[in-house]
């Protein structure tokens, strides 16, 4: 049976390796005029913990 269309089919679990990515980003301080850059998750490896905050869309109220 197909999964309900409004739910993700699967989820990542704690203890799994975080899929690496490279995405275009605002500058290090979004909205403050810092230059755009590419950000790669693995660039933080061995250096910093990372808090990935997925959010539905810009201009959504919080």
């Amino acid at each position, binding site marked *: 049976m197909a999964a309900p269309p409004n739910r*993700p089919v699967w989820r*990542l679990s704690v203890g799994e390796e*975080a899929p690496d990515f490279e995405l*275009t*980003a605002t500058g290090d301080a979004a909205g403050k005029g810092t230059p755009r850059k590419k950000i790669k998750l693995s660039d933080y490896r061995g250096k910093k913990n990372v*808090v990935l905050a997925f959010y539905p869309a810009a*201009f959504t109220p*919080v």
Partner: protein
Amino acid sequence: MPSYEEDLSEFERRNAQVLGISTDQVFSNEAWAKSMGGLSYPLLSDNWPYGYVAAQYGVLRGTGTVERAIFVVDKQGIVRYIDIHDIGQQPPTDKIMQALDKLR
């Protein structure tokens, strides 16, 4: 997202980098951040291909909406904490801090 701005020094103290991710384009994220007075962390655009990263993390719904979710990744690149919330709710920051405290 704006609530993290107040907690930024708390993230820094825990050697953690906050990255906001949505399917919006960069110019849209820049405008949004500017309208909030600017943020101290970057916003990433997961829009090409649309929602590709969100899908890999399992937070892209069939309708194309990205869920409001937090993933704490340690320095070895391993997921250590996951919090997925209803779209209208903000994940509790104290739980994120607790997860980070365990990593230090």
